[in-house]
């Protein structure tokens, strides 16, 4: 299996085939008052402006990392967003906001 990025810690390791879902008890939603996406969790919230919201929107427990990258590249043509997506996923996975899809 290929590693998304060499030298990553084991806990953050994932591949292009990894399917992520939101961490249990996290909720992702559009906030009309703020005109932006947010991630809500026990007693806290993070705003996800711009591309971070677009990536998080695609973390649905069904799409693989590869699919998310392809979808974003199709939606926002002009540049390969793979690096941005991988960087963001590493960041939020490290924070514990998302996790690889749990089976069973």
């Amino acid at each position, binding site marked *: 299996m290929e590693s998304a990025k060499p030298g990553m810690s084991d806990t953050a390791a994932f591949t292009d085939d990894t399917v992520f879902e939101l961490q*249990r*008890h996290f*909720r992702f*939603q559009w*906030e009309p*008052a*703020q005109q932006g996406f*947010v991630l*809500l*969790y*026990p*007693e*806290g*919230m993070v705003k996800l402006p711009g591309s971070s919201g677009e990536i998080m929107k695609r973390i649905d427990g069904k799409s693989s990392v590869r699919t998310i990258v392809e979808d974003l590249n199709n939606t926002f043509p002009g540049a390969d967003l793979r690096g941005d997506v991988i960087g963001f996923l590493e960041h939020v996975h490290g924070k*514990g906001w998302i996790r690889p899809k749990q089976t069973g």
Partner: protein
Amino acid sequence: MEKAGSVPNKPGNPLWLLAEITYKCPLHCVFCYNPVDYTSYGQELTTEDWLRVLRQGREIGATQLGFSGGEPLVRDDLEILVAEARKLGYYSNLITSGVGLNEKRISAFKEGGLDHIQLSFQDSTKELNDFLSSTRTFDLKQKVAKLIKKHEYPMVLNCVLHRHNIDHVQQILEMAEAMEAEYVELANTQYYGWAYVNRDQLLPTREQLKRAEEVTNKFRERVGNKMRIYFVVPDYYENRPKACMNGWGSVFLTITADGLALPCHEARQLPGLNFPNVRDHDLRSIWYDSPGFNAYRGDAWMKEPCRTCPEKVKDFGGCRCQAYMLTGDATNADPVCDLSPHHRLVTDAVDKAQNPAPAVQVKPILFRDDRNSRALSKTPA
């Protein structure tokens, strides 16, 4: 005139709505932050009032909602409020002692869409838990913790620390681990309300605090991410004030059981601000236009040393209520700051706390109950 401060053109929207839906509580905790004169307040808001408040809160952008009190489970319309909160898109948190939570109610909360339950414990030992809350609840809390797990809520335990239980931090954390807690808040008492009345009995020694932090750090290393532990130091031991409420009227909005809208749950005691009631005003006008919410926004209200202090953008001068309680003037710097001319008020209390003899022998500890509240209501604040 020197232009040292300004009121921001327009404050941001509130993020947190704290609904203190009742001051009734089956517990009588000595460290409760509720106002000591709660028995003198008027009628509680009706279900319709609360539904309106929830709607208005969402309209101005609040996302996090806390149901608190008192004990929020005392109100039998909590199920209705929970369901409405979910429909409106809040992330809702029930902050509870667990007394009154049973299979039927937690099922209804789950179905209604309650996101999160924070369960409070007074201590890891039955005797102290029951003494400090002046009731027999420890076994019940263990049962409630199981219910919370069963219904797949994140297990969030909150234990308020003070000199009578802070030496039990190891046991508290072990208990939390046994309950498979995901988050544990070891929150040292903040000295407001009943805790302020009982301050000299509750303030831990420096040594106790140091040990508790060491134990916590060691525990953290062992359990890693599986259990996130927050340790909140009593601000009396700091030399810079907390950024209270992340700034006055900045993100936090409290509605009291009788309908007052406050920038924090302690602000009611501040004189001259005449906070509006949600029976008479909508939340938008309260948040943006009421004199009470604008009183300490920005920094134009600040005095020295805050006014010219480079750190004012970080801590906003600390807590207005603490400044008022300790110095009699809410526009003074929070005396926790060692740059405050009143800092001695804090260090004197800390010095006094170093005496290892339990102060409880000197002066009886005051439980939060209706009788004590009525007695404390007689003297004007």
